[in-house]
Structure formats: C-alpha cells, structure tokens
C-alpha cells in the first residue's frame, strides 16, 4: 500500500463532562474502503467529524497527505478534498435539489466582474448526476422535501462524489434505506473506491461492512480495538468486536451467525 492519505494520531475529544474519544489512531489509504464499526455511542460520528473539520480534537494530531492538517471549518476540509455525508442528513428540505446539490460549492459565473450563481450550469449538472444515480427529478427546482429518504441519501452521496473528493466519508448511509437503495449505495461505494478514492464507511450492519470493506476498525466506548484487514477476520469475530466484546442476547434457535 502507498502512503496513507489521512493519519489520525491518538485523537481525543471531550464534550464538557463527556469523553467521547479517548485516544484513537487510524490510518486511511487511498483506494481502500475503510469500515468504522462499533456500538451506539462508541464515538464513530465524533471521530469522523474531527476528520472533516466539524470538531477540533481536544488532543491528538491529524496528518493529511503527510501534512499536519488544521481545518478551522468544514469548508477547509472540503476544499482539501474531504467530502462527508453526515448521519443526520446534510440536505435542506425547503431548498431545491440543485441548490442543495451545490450548497457550499456554488458554481460561479462572472458577469461584469461580479460573481453570480451559475444556475444553468448547476441545474444541468444536477439533472445529469441524478439521472446517473437512477433518480428522475420533476425538475432541478423540485424541493428536497418532496423526495423520499432514500432519494435524499442518494443526492447527498452523488454530491460528495461529484465534487471530486479524495476522501469520501459516509456516516451510516444505509441505516434507513430499503434493500434496493442499500444495494445501490454499496455499489456506488465500490465504484468510488475503484477510482482511487479513500472511502470511510460507518455501519452497524456486519454484512454491509463485509460486502465492501477492505479494512475494519472497531471503536468501543471511545477507544479502538485496532484495525483488521479483510480476510484476517471472520464475520463472527467482527460481530463480536462490534458488540463491544459483550455477550449477545440469544434467540431461541432461529438466529445464528450474523445479525
């Protein structure tokens, strides 16, 4: 493997009295799908938020392409090539799909030296990208509020991919999705990874993780159990790790193996 694109070194993050991360180190390589697994409240979302510039770590160092990275705001991370689809959707229901698609990355056309929002370009790109993802909009000015949850999720991913991210972070993108939508998202992840983009994929579903993951990092209560590589770990081991090493409730007979 080449040089890691992001190195997270002993990241700590405290919120007032809550210690959400107690020193987590992870390296992310280009072209890999790195799965971040763990219990509820393990600190996964917090961890990727320090990566995408939303939170500043309380302690620890982040290197991006070998350079210490000091992102003050999400915008900086974005400009550097880190795109994030957050767990709680980053879409605004009252705004049109095309405005949402370009939110924070508005295309600009200069007229008489003044930069205007290039609506034509934005609309075209949005329609095209949505069509690629299999979503036929009524028009680019359709409000996101009229889309279903799955469709919104897809818009968010399409947006992240479109802006040429070097790192794509997906926080539980499949949790609310139907079977078909899930399968679409997984296929997209696969496609993106093949383009040499690093994907960080958070999920509670072992099978989703195994389907696309190259390496697996399990967080537990703010610290990490270490990273395993595909093939080195069986689904059962992984599932045990994800549950925080605690015993799972057993269902009479019916449910063996992975949940």
């Amino acid at each position: 493997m080449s040089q890691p694109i992001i190195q997270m070194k002993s990241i700590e993050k405290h919120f007032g009295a809550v210690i959400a991360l107690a020193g987590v180190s992870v390296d992310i390589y280009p072209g890999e799908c790195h799965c971040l697994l763990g219990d509820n409240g393990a600190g996964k979302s917090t961890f990727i938020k320090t990566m995408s510039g939303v939170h500043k770590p309380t302690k620890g160092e982040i290197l991006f392409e070998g350079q210490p990275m000091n992102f003050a705001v999400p915008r900086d991370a974005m400009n550097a090539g880190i795109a994030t689809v957050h767990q709680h959707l980053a879409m605004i229901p009252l705004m049109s799909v095309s405005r949402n698609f370009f939110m924070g990355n508005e295309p600009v056309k200069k007229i008489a030296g003044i930069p205007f929002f290039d609506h034509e370009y934005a609309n075209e790109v949005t329609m095209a990208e949505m069509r690629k993802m299999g979503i036929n909009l009524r028009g680019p000015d359709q409000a996101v509020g009229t889309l279903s949850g799955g469709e919104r999720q897809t818009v968010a991913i399409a947006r992240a991919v479109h802006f040429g991210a070097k790192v794509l972070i997906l926080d539980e993108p499949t949790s609310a999705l139907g079977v078909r939508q899930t399968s679409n998202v997984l296929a997209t992840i696969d496609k993106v990874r093949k383009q040499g983009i690093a994907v960080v994929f958070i999920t509670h579903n072992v099978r989703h993780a195994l389907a696309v993951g190259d390496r697996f990092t399990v967080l537990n209560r703010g610290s990490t159990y270490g990273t395993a590589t595909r093939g080195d770990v069986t689904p059962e081991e992984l599932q045990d790790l994800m549950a925080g090493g605690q015993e799972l409730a057993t269902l009479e007979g019916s449910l063996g193996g992975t949940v």
Partner: protein
Amino acid sequence: MSTSTPSAAGDERIKERSRLRNALVRPELGGICGTVLVFTFFLLTAADSGMFSPTGFLNWGTVSAQFAIIAVGACLLMIAGEFDLSVGSMIGFAGMSIAILGVTFGLPIWLAIVITFVLCTLIGGLSGYIVVKTGLPSFIVTLAFLFILRGFTIFLPQLIERKTIIGGISDAAEGDWLAPLFGGKVLNGLFVWLGDAGLIETFSRGSRQGQPVVDGVPMLVIWALLLIIFGHILLTRTRFGNWIFAAGGDAEAARNSGVPVDRVKILMFMFTAFCATVFATCQVMEFGSAGADRGLLKEFEAIIAVVIGGALLTGGYGSVIGAALGALIFGVVQQGLFFAGVESSLFRVFLGVILLMAVILNTYIRRLITGEK
C-alpha cells in the same frame, strides 16, 4: 408503469396536476394575489378620493417604500433563520445619533451619517454575534436590544440636550454632499415638464405657485427600489444567497456542508441594521429632526410585511419580491383606509385580519411548492 425509474416523473402515485397550476405556484403568489385584491378593493371604494391622483400616488408610494426599506432587511434575515425585534428602536437610535452628532456636536452631516451607519451596523453585528455564539433565540436577544437601544435613545438627548426631540438638522445639512442622497428628490425636471404640460396639477397659490404638486421622486423611494433589487439579486442569483437559504433552512446541515453559517447570520443582522439606518437617515433628512419616539413598533410592521409576502417565520423560505409586495399591500391598506374614510381605529382590526388571511394563503402555497407536510 415504468420498471426502472421508481420516482417522480410518471409516478402513478402522484395525482395529475395542471401545468398552469405549477407555473402559478411560486413564493410570491400570495403577495401578488393580495396586491391585486387590495388595489381592486380601493379602486372600487376610493377611486374618487384622490387616492389615485399624482399626490395620492406619491403618498401611499412613499409609505410603502418606507415599509419596503425595512422589509428587505427583515426578509433576508428571516430567510437566514433569525429575526430582529430591535428594528424600530434602531430607527430611533440612528436618527438620534445623526442629530446629536450633527447638531449638538456640530460635526459635518456627512460625517455624522457615516459614523451612524458604522455604529448601527456594528450594533446589528453585535446582536448577531450574541445570537450566533450563545445559540439563544433571536427573539430574546433582539428584544433585549429593543429595550437597550430605546433606553439610550430617550436617555442620551435628555442628558445632553434636555430634550427628547432634536431639530435643526435641515440647517446643518445645508450644502452637504451626502445629505441629498437621503433627503432629496430626483426627476424634478420631468415633473416640472409634466406640470407645464398640464398633465399633473400645479400649486394654485403660495410661494410655489405654478410648480407641479409632485415635484420629484423622493430618494426614499429610490432607496427602496435599490434595496429591493439588491436583495432580490443577492438572494436568488449569488452564492451568498444560497447560503442565506441554507443557513435558515437547517443551520447544522449547512454548517456540515461548508456554509459559513455564523458569518451569514451576522452579516444579515448587520444588513437589517443597515436598512433601519437608511430608513432613519431618510426620515431625519426629510423632516429635519430626530425624536425619541421614532420607529415605535416598526419591527412588527417589517415582520408583518415580510410574512404577508410569503416568507416562513422559521427561516429557509421566502422572497424579497414577496416582501416588497407585502410592504406595498401594507402601505396601500394603511393609507387607503384613510382615503376611504374608514374610522382610523379600525385600521388595526383590518391589519390583523389581513395578516391572518395572508399567512394562511401563503402556508397553503408553500406546502404545494415544498412538499412539506
């Protein structure tokens, strides 16, 4: 029934909707309907009262322009998800600031105006800063500023001048280069020509005999138009406009997407204060005095105009054109009731009823557009 495209286009689960209906359904629709209704009403009831004569026109035009100036600021701020109850106090404060600086302290008026603009936008920025940093609702923060600013507006002139009204600004503004930008009139020549041609009435006596009764378009109206155009373009045609919508629609989501939400909100608070200061400056320059009671309740009037114009009180949705139409409706109704000779204490009753009807209509329209539930 298509098998590969599950959504929207050709979805059998969406009942048919006519094209006309889709074309009509826009945020401004409520404002447009209201405007048509209001004008029809007054054309029928007050046509012969002079309401549609040149002076009548100028009268409700000026009042509407006044509302529009503060409505533009309030509109953008509301779309950005906040609102400002201190607009009225800010108007009083700004006027008093110009008067104290220009008359009591004897600064040149242009300097007094510039200092006031800087001071007021900074105060607007301060309330924005507090809102953004503490996460408090803007209702509370700006309510505090409503009291603080009004308190100073009453206290300072009393302390300095032992009066609550300071006059003499017209004299001080004589020959100033900046003052006419707020207090003057334009297109005087056109109206003189119209008057000479007998197209509009002329004064029949007094010092201005023979001059047309309307001798120009007040700068107030020009400011209103400029601000409306500026606001509309900013909102719909620029990247910053997209940020305003995003900040008001869902601040968290916008922040995650890289929109500098805090900056947008603070700037919009400053813009609102700027609009209030424009209002105050025009008023002070036109009338030549500043009083401690100027601008009372104007914050409500601005919010009402914006809401009549179809903006969503909770942010993320609205249009400047709509707000301008709201201001027009407000102005026409207020002055029109006088023309129609309605008992003036009933004005409030009308206002309340119109507000309710407008907002119900707008909610219906908005749901059609955004698919909100």
